[in-house]
């Protein structure tokens, strides 16, 4: 297969007719993840939007070997795939566990922490759409403060989003990165890099969700870009403990500054009841974290 200008694998692993929602950030990310990891890959799937995307038996919209498991167990399921392959001397297959924020931050944290602490040889990627979107937008540990969900339908979520990247960094991983489907080349490059590294690699995917966040389906990329340009979501990688900005965040760190958060928030229905105090708290935490990252990048 010949290369395009970005040297991105032209083969498609998700065929037309997937059951994901229109404008789904996950389907866009997943398309490039699979292009980066290529054929010799097995995917572990919990019950989630990804399970829906894969289709209803006996048809599937994907051409990739995939194993469904229960909600709490995706990282353990990937551990079992890795152990089984090793027992059978099949050592050239990449194992990817791909869970939503529920399957990562909340019900999936135990098996993920266990697998990461054992430095299981796999990639765990979290597609973070900031809520239980597959069941219809309920609050999760990843939902940001001030967001409306169907279980915080009146008052909005009162607590801040869990800082999951810090939790994963505490597991001494060989590779940790953040990506956004709004920046597919950056995403692609990081998965290609992760594929070559051994041990537990963690990749966090900011995943805009039109029905859950309340924005038009055509704006998925725009919302993804605004998340990065406001500094709410920062593109970086940590390799053997060394922090490095990448892509748009790198350019922003070198010159320029963050856009005000309101540019991002006011395009989404879920933030329509956010209070001034919540906005202030969120803006301050974004600024503080950005400054922390700037310091880390200096070295």
């Amino acid at each position, binding site marked *: 297969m010949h290369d395009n200008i970005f040297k991105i694998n032209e083969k498609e692993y998700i065929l037309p007719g997937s059951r994901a929602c229109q404008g789904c950030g996950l389907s866009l990310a997943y398309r490039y993840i699979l292009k980066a990891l290529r*054929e010799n890959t097995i995917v572990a799937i919990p019950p989630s939007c990804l399970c829906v995307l894969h289709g209803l038996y006996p048809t599937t919209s994907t051409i990739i070997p995939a194993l469904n498991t229960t909600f709490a167990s995706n990282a353990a399921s990937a551990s079992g795939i890795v152990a089984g392959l090793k027992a059978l001397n099949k050592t050239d297959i990449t194992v990817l566990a791909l869970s939503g924020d529920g399957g990562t931050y909340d019900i999936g944290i135990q*098996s993920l922490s*266990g697998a990461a602490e054992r430095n299981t040889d796999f990639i765990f990627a979290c597609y973070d759409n900031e809520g239980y979107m597959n069941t219809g937008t309920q609050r999760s540990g990843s939902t940001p403060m001030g967001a409306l969900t169907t279980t915080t339908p009146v008052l909005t979520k009162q607590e801040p989003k869990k800082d999951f990247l810090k939790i994963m960094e505490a597991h001494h991983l060989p590779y940790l990165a953040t990506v956004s489907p709004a920046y597919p080349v950056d995403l692609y490059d990081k998965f290609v890099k992760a594929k070559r590294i051994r041990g537990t690699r963690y990749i966090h995917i900011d995943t805009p969700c039109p029905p859950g966040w309340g924005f038009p389906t055509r704006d998925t990329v725009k919302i993804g870009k605004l998340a990065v340009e406001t500094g709410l979501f920062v593109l970086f990688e940590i390799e053997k403990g060394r922090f490095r900005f990448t892509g748009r965040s790198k350019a922003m760190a070198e010159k320029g500054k963050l856009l005000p958060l309101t540019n991002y928030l006011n395009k989404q229905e879920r933030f329509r009841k956010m209070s001034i105090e919540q906005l202030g708290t969120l803006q301050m935490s974004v600024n503080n974290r950005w400054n922390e990252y700037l310091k880390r990048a200096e070295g």
Partner: protein
Amino acid sequence: MNDVRIITGNEAAAQAVKLAKPGVIAAYPITPQTSLAELLSEYVERGELKAEYVRVESEHSSLTVCISASTVGARVFTATSSNGLLYMHEQLHWASGSRLPVVMCCVNRGVGAPWSIFNDQQDSFSQRDTGWIQIYCRDNQEILDTIIQAYRIAEEVYIPVMVCYDGFILSHTMMPVDIPDAGVVKKFLPSYKPHTVLSPDDPKTINPVFFATRRENSEGVLCDGYMDMRHKLQSAFKKSGEIIKTASEEWAKMTGRDHGGLIWEYMTEDAELILTGMGSIATEATLAADALRAEGIRAGVVGIRTYRPFPKEEVVQAFKKATAIAVFEKCISYGYEGGVCSDLKAAFYGTDIKAPIHSYIAGLGGRDVKTGEIVDAARTTLESIKSGKTENKTIWLNCYSD
């Protein structure tokens, strides 16, 4: 020459696993299973057993690891007890629903709350309807032999097998165990052939969402709906009884050790009173039968070795001449009665077996069940029935109540 060693039930289990050569082992320690998990990790670290040992953070993950490793084509083993088994509950369904030949030991222990580390069978009994074959062992030799048989059964019928044995009473008690030669095991147990392999060579999405109705695939062929898949599991259970019996018979031919396939019987030919149960309490009942016979009471024992599939035809045959039946159970279905008692009654429905059944709930949380207590209970049952009382009843053996 035979290799006979004096070992605990857990070591007998570990020796069996070593002989069955699983590619992947995952276990989380829990009393009284712990020494089994420890022994296996020692075999692996010493290079005596070539397997991937995944030292998981929970029982939920230990069974998950086995499920996924089995799906890529590896033979697998795990073991647990009590609340560990309960923590696996959703994965028990996942393993059987996936039709994976996982073999697991359940070292039987009472379930909290309140905590008890000691033996009863409420743990595995409460998982009866998860779609696993359950086999209960009565001594350490049977533990070893059953684990090897379990792999052959599971891999032939694609149903996971739970090998159950009583915590401490067997797991921590030393008995002579004949360790079979590796060549014998190799001959008895062919290598594992998965029904579906998760592999990039043939990409599939395994266990996606099923509809209730059957649906066409891309070639227009109608494929199973959820209910049809469930019926296939039940059909496999129906034929599994014969496979369990065959495995037991062939093992007996090769080793001289016959533990019974689905049930075993002790002096039942002329028995008017039949005592029954699962696991070590049934062994204890054989001593009680001896004592009763010494008093002139024609007593015998039927041991329920395989609890699922329930051996309906075998128990009808074995109990047909009994005039009194006493079930000794280390578990109960709260709000009703002992589970084996219920199943026996259901099996006898519509047959000529009209003997009253007394269900003795015994030994919960490790309360000792002495032979003499079984003898007394059995005598009471027989006298009550002989005096014309035909009611079935549940009696809590050696239990204080105000």
